[in-house]
């Protein structure tokens, strides 16, 4: 029994549980987020006796007499200041880490009202953020400190809400103060908990499932198996190769396969019950690498499917001949590793009965994708299944596939009760698709001036247990492997193999993060041979407006690669030990696929325009972008507009939040809807239009790969970037990263910078410290705290340069930015280390750097 104080109120509790559970489940203090419940992430940080502590660590019985403070307990003035400062600085993206950061800030500022930047970094060093790269969180805390010292709130830099302005994002307040709801923050009346028992072996036949002991445990509602699935068991983002649960008699494909779904009244009973489910297996041989998978007589990962998921061949001109005639030829083999997304919010879905259908609160990258797969599994028509986005605590591609959603929906269907299905952090690390590891063989030929003559490559990826987005990732890796340069002899063969490792799928960069490392490294080697700088070789080869890319596409006036090279030139010339790389990345899925943006503006009874679009905001700030577009394209003010989070019954399907597409594709759909609204508003007010809907849609039309046209339009637009890594030659650490990005029109420059900073830090991790180790039995062995993510006291100065160059004539000229921020970083860093020590590095993470983790 313990009596202590939470936000000034005395509480008493005798139940033995962690403070986090007591705060969330009993007091419904939801600002303390459950990011891992193992002490790693810091999202549950609260103050105990003024000191930052992870609420998931102490049992309540240890806290007798202690004073606990959460964001909810800050004074009104403190709340106002933090909301302002974090909004003004652009520090809030997905928001999941933010309450924890605010509490660290409070503890620091109470002791040191005028902290240095180093002290701020130190104060948040134990709190992870995956979105921001910490840059703007540090700036926010500096600003908050200043406001507290001065005692008055300044005016925001900008609140006109027109495009191009650095407005505070519309969800800052709910995220800073912690009342914004992610699925885990929903506690509907009568809610119970569901979780799946997962496979003991990477590849085994399920012989029998005995759930009798589990079902007999008091508080267990039921144990469901594949036999209970009313509709289709096999779902999947593209290929329906992914069973929601492995039925008796079928084989498992990886350790993350669900076999039995237990539903229980409480989380404690659920854990006990899961251990009581007895599954009998016939262990089978497995394959844990592409080499093993492609071997003759290799075990089949999927019955009735070849182990080769996809083969892509892209060719233009005659690469072999061009290379043979080249003055200098460079040939190397490269390896890039598996990577974990490590978003702060683990997967969670809350499903409720809704008439004779289901309503589900999800964290995902498209409510409509979730709808399609869940309805397919339920065997229900779409009208009966409603998916509503809650806040999404980061995705980066890792929430594009189904994980908890079908399980929650099935449990609700069978029990008639609201059900929360949540993954533990360990399950999240095992289950959702990762970044593909690639083995790459690249050959580059240049002439005596460093002009690229031809590139030939073979790339092999391990796509793991399920297709997920493995085919498109391979395709993108191939199409973008040539780099943003003007030459025409290019050939690449790509192979993606199924294995019994965890699946690989979408992850920021989508195959280009991998092939860019290879081509950019070879280009740096070529520069040295020719006797020019890496900057110069890129300047000579850079694609320019009107030029033809190696895929045959003629690029338009919006092409800004050269501007990005020029933007970093001064920093480049002034630096001693440095490395650069360039990249291009498609905006929009392209290659002939249906790429629709759809947006509805509805004037509701409150005389405001409500924006509905199926596009998920996963932390990148899409809602704010759409509001800014609406303000600019109509005569309305910010106060006239409400952004509604994506759902499936009002918001039209606007595709996945992936492929750096939403700002451009959904943005254009929004703009078209605004045109109609603006016309309707001529001589009228909003009150006159109550009940009216204004719909806009946009198809980003492109040519399929291999289309029989001389100059295919593979993608409607590309983003371009140059990144520069400057090392401190004394210590060998990175002193500064400079990242220049051509984004077309920057709708919200603050958000663009945030994406750049976050993407750079994410792929600094990819380049230097992160890994996703698998043991010989296809099991991932990393934990959140051992993945190697960068922390706030370890990141160097990051200078983000947003090149605001007119884009296309759609989406107000915006092109977008999501993925490319993470693409050229690794090769730029690799080259910098070559300049430091003369060692070329061909695999990631880079070895022999001060960052190397041994």
């Amino acid at each position, binding site marked *: 029994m313990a009596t202590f104080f939470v936000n000034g109120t005395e509480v008493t509790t005798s139940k033995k549980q962690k403070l986090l559970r007591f705060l969330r489940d009993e007091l419904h203090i939801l600002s303390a987020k459950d990011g*891992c419940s*193992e*002490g*790693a992430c*810091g999202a549950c940080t609260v103050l*105990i*006796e003024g*000191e930052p*502590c*992870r609420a998931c*660590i*102490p*049992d309540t019985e*240890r806290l007798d007499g*202690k004073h606990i403070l959460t964001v909810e307990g800050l004074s009104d003035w403190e709340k106002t200041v933090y909301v302002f400062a974090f909004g003004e600085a652009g520090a809030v993206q997905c928001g999941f880490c933010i309450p924890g950061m605010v509490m660290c800030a409070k503890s*620091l500022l109470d*002791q*040191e009202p005028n*902290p*240095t930047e*180093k*002290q701020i970094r*130190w*104060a948040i060093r*134990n709190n992870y953020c995956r979105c921001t790269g910490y840059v703007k969180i540090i700036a926010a805390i500096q600003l908050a400190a200043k406001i507290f010292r001065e005692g008055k709130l300044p005016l925001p830099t900008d609140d006109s809400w027109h495009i191009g302005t650095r407005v505070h994002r519309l969800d800052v307040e709910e995220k800073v103060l912690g009342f914004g709801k992610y699925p885990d923050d929903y506690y509907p009346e009568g809610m119970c908990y569901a979780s799946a028992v997962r496979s003991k072996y990477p590849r085994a036949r399920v012989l029998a499932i005995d759930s009798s002991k589990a079902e007999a445990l008091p508080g267990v509602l039921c144990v469901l198996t594949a036999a209970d699935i009313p509709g289709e068991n096999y779902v999947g983002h593209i290929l329906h190769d992914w069973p929601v649960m492995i039925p008796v008699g079928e084989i498992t494909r990886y350790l993350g396969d669900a076999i039995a779904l237990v539903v229980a009244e409480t989380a404690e009973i659920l854990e006990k019950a899961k251990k009581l489910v007895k599954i009998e297996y016939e262990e089978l041989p497995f394959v844990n690498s592409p080499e093993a998978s492609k071997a003759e007589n290799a075990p089949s990962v999927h019955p009735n499917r070849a182990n080769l998921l996809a083969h892509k061949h892209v060719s233009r001109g005659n690469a072999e001949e061009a290379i043979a005639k080249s003055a200098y030829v460079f040939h190397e083999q490269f390896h890039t590793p598996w990577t974990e997304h490590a978003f702060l919010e683990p997967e969670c879905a809350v499903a409720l009965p809704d008439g004779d259908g289901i309503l589900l609160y999800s964290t995902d990258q498209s409510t409509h994708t979730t709808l399609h797969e869940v309805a397919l599994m339920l065997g229900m028509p779409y009208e009966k299944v409603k998916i509503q986005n809650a806040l999404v605590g980061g995705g980066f591609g890792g929430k594009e596939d189904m994980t908890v959603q079908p399980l929650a929906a099935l449990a609700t269907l069978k029990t008639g009760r609201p059900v929360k299905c949540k993954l533990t952090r360990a399950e999240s690390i095992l289950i959702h698709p990762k970044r593909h590891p690639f083995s790459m063989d690249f050959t580059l030929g240049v002439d005596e001036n460093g002009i690229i003559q031809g590139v030939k490559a073979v790339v092999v990826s391990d796509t793991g247990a399920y297709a997920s987005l493995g085919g498109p990732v391979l395709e993108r890796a191939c199409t973008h492997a040539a780099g943003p340069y003007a030459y025409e002899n290019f050939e690449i063969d790509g192979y993606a193999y199924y294995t019994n490792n965890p699946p690989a799928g979408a992850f920021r960069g989508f195959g280009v993060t991998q092939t860019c490392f290879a081509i950019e490294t070879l280009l740096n080697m070529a520069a040295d041979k020719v006797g020019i700088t890496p900057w110069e070789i890129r300047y000579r080869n850079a694609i320019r407006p009107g030029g033809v890319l190696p895929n045959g596409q003629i690029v338009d006036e919006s092409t800004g690669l050269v501007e990005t090279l020029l933007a970093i030139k001064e920093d480049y010339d002034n630096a001693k030990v440095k490395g650069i790389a360039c990249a291009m990345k498609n905006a929009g899925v392209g290659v002939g696929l249906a790429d629709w943006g759809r947006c509805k503006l509805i004037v509701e009874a409150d005389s405001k325009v409500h924006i509905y679009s199926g596009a998920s905001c996963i932390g990148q700030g899409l809602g704010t972008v759409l509001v800014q577009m609406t303000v600019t394209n109509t005569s309305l003010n910010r106060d006239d507009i409400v952004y509604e989070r994506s759902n499936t019954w009002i918001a039209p399907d606007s595709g996945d939040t992936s492929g750096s597409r939403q700002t451009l594709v959904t943005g254009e759909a929004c703009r078209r809807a605004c045109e109609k609204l603006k016309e309707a508003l001529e001589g009228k007010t909003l009150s006159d239009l109550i009940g009216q809907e204004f719909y806009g849609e946009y198809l980003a039309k492109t040519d399929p790969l291999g289309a029989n046209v001389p100059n295919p339009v593979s993608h409607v637009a590309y983003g371009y970037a140059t990144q520069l890594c400057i090392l401190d030659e004394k210590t060998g650490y990175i002193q500064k990263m400079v990242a220049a990005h051509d984004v077309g029109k920057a709708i919200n420059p603050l958000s663009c910078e945030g994406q750049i900073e976050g993407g750079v830090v994410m792929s600094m991790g990819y380049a230097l410290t992160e890994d996703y180790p698998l043991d010989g039995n296809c099991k991932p062995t990393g*934990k*959140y*705290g*051992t993945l190697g993510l960068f922390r706030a*006291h370890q990141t160097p100065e990051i200078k983000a340069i947003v090149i605001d160059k007119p884009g296309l004539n759609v989406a107000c000229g915006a092109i977008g930015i999501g993925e490319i921020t993470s693409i050229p970083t690794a090769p730029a860093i690799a080259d910098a280390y070559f300049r430091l020590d003369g060692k070329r590095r061909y695999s990631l993470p880079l070895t022999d750097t001060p960052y190397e983790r041994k």
Partner: protein
Amino acid sequence: MNANEKGVAMKYIACIACNGGCRSKKDCSYGCLACGACVAVCPNGAITIADELAQVDTSKCNGCGLCKLACPQYLISQQHTPIEVRCSNHDLRSKDHCEVSCIGCGLCQKNCPADAIRVVNNCAVIDEEKCLSCGACAMVCPRKVIHDRRGILT
């Protein structure tokens, strides 16, 4: 991060790696002798001997490190994380020599989310670069050897 950077947020505080088992008249050869060398050398009077064990008043410690140099048992280190392993006993059977020692059971290592604490030569050691100061190790230590010097988690 160097210890010379001023400011409350980055303090390195003296940590005495002994849990005071000497009080129970067992014969651990590693532990605090209560010799007072650290007390004598501390410029701020931050160390006192109580019940045969040297103890640090963290509000007075400025992280200067003089006590570390003075200790004949090499028990004192400076660390920024408030989570302290208060034992230096490397005997395989430390239990025979101290009632409150680390016994190298490895529960801390198993529960650390960051692989920061490991049993090295039969005694738990924290790698400060990896440590997230979460206190999970302190929660599970069966011997109560791992302390939160702020008095919050332990």
